Each structure stands twice: as structure tokens, then as C-alpha cells.
């Protein structure tokens, strides 16, 4: 799959990488839309280059063994754990089930990916 890695600048490069696997309490999501936040360029100024996207809107591709709330094909939005691998700037992303939620039928992927972290401005100096 394709994944965007954000480095200082921001300078972004796209890489071909394997599709990640969810652990027992996680969900693998095919990303339809990714949101963005100011921290997505701020964090890579201070840390190693990484996939800094955290706002996921998409379709569940696979779930871990402990996940009962979601199944393949569910329309969801999720907040990816910041600074952990497999963020939202990719074709597939990983989120914890507890920060994943179902989309009402009338809610589009476009609109919901503005809601997850809600413009988080965090940056660590």
C-alpha cells in the first residue's frame, strides 16, 4: 500500500509498504478520507519523519480478536494514536477499537474526518 511520510519542512514522501495488521484490540481501516491538523506538520519538526495523520474516515478491513463492536465493511471514523505507526496518511490505517466509532448512514466520510481530533494543535518543545 502507499503511505505518506512527513518530515521536517514539511517535506512529504510516498512509500510502498506492507498493509499493517491490527493487534487484538485494534481495527484496520481502509482510509477513504484523511483529515489533517496543525500538529501533523509541527511534530515532524521535532521528531523522526513519520506518518503523522491521525483523523481516519473509512471502511473496516479487519479487526483484532477482542473486537466485537466492528466488522469488515463497517463505515467508521477513528482517531489514530498520535506518534504510533500506521497513521491516516496511507491507504490503510490502524486505530484502537475504543477510539473508533460508527457513522450514521447520512454522515459522509468527507465531513466526519473533520471531527475526530478536532484541530488538535499540540506540539512538544
Amino acid at each position: 500500500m502507499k503511505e505518506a511520510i512527513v518530515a521536517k519542512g514539511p517535506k512529504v514522501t510516498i512509500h510502498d509498504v506492507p498493509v499493517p495488521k491490527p493487534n487484538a484490540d485494534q481495527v484496520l481501516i481502509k482510509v477513504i478520507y484523511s483529515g489533517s491538523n496543525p500538529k501533523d506538520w509541527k511534530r515532524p519538526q521535532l521528531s523522526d519523519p513519520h506518518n503523522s495523520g491521525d483523523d481516519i474516515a473509512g471502511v473496516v478491513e479487519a479487526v483484532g480478536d477482542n473486537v466485537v463492536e466492528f466488522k469488515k465493511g463497517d463505515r467508521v471514523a477513528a482517531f489514530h494514536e498520535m506518534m504510533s505507526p500506521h497513521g491516516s496518511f496511507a491507504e490503510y490505517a490502524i486505530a484502537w477499537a475504543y477510539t473508533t466509532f460508527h457513522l450514521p448512514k447520512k454522515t459522509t466520510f468527507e465531513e466526519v474526518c473533520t471531527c475526530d481530533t478536532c484541530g488538535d494543535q499540540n506540539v512538544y518543545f
Partner: protein
Amino acid sequence: MTAAVGLYQRLGLPEPWNATTTPTPLIVYGGSGAVGAFAIKLAQASNIHPLIVVAGRAQSFVEKLITPCKGDAIVDYRKGNEAVVSGIKDALKKAGVSEVHYAFDAVSEHNSFQNISKVLSKPGKITLVLPGKNYSDIPEYIEKSNTMVGSVHMDNAPDSAKGKAGIKTGGKDFGFAFFRLFSRGLQEGWFTAHPYEVVPGGLAGVEKGLSDLKNGVNSATKYIFKIEDTK
């Protein structure tokens, strides 16, 4: 979610399922950004009013989020610090309240918390969104906290008061509950998306989108990327 953490976990305001009927003035500093706008929407669900919203370029956007008949008002920060302080005081007076004890500072720079400090009454609470900054200008009688959305992925620190008390529940449970409430709020219609702009090119557009965020090109919009458009 940043807005929810700030309002409910840090400021301790009543959640939407326990909305208040007591006038509860709240300053939202930076009302047109995503954090501020979602703070207004959630505060509305909690019936927290009057909302005194400090905003700049995107006032017409903020106007649609507030309820003036409950005392809500917008104060323009572009007119300078003194005008912001007097504007907040005037708005409180017009709303028929004499004091404000809560502030959500979704800007946390450009003199925002200094201005807020001039109007918050004892006992005051302010929550701020930029960690690691020097907030020593905020007087002692105002309780300050940092709102970090990453807290929904964290356990209580072992050396924190809660950690020492053996409390296991906290940020993760808050995240679990509130993300599900978002789902319901979207269905019911009281929780709505932020305006957005699709940056062309899918992943190839990420660099442009993030650069525009850095350069402050956007006002009251979120940049999003359609992954399928990646070539």
C-alpha cells in the same frame, strides 16, 4: 475530541447528558478554528451559556454556531488586547451576568491567556491547548490545565494522584464514551462537521495541505485528503 477533553475533563463542565439550566458563562478564545468551533457545539449540547466567543476573520461562521438570545456574543480580537478585554466585559454585562469562571483558550498565544486572565473571576479555570509554553502570566488564583487530545490514549501516570490511588479508569474511557456520543450526535443532528476543503492529489497533496496549514492560509476550514486520488 480535543474540545470534549477540554470542556469536560479539564474544565469539569456538565456533559451533554447532564446539561445545565444554570447560567454558566464560558469564554471560548478562538471560536472559528476546529477546536473552538467544536467546543461551541458541545457547549451548546450541554446548554452552557452565555458563550463569549473571541474570533477574527471568520465571524460570520461563528455567528451560525451561537445562540444570541441566551447571551452568546462574539468579540473581535483584531481590534487589540484592550478591546478584547472590554468587549468580553461588555458581553457579560449584556448577558446579565457579573462574573465568568471558565475559559477554553483554543489559541494559547498572541496574548490570549493574558487577556482572559484580566476577566476571569475567582475561582477561575482556564484550559490551554499549546503544551510546554510559559503560562506564568496567568495568576495563581486561576487553575490552569493543558488540553491534550492524546490523553484519550493514555493511562493515568503512576505518579499522578489518580495513579497513586490505584484508579485505572480515565482518558481511554472518556474517549470510548465520547466517540460513541459523537456517533449519536451526528445522527441526531446536534453534532456537525467542520467546513472542509479537499486538497487535490490524495497523498500527493499532503505536503501542500500541511504547508498551507503552517502558513496559516486556512481560516475556519479543515484540509482533507481523498486517498483514492493518489497517483
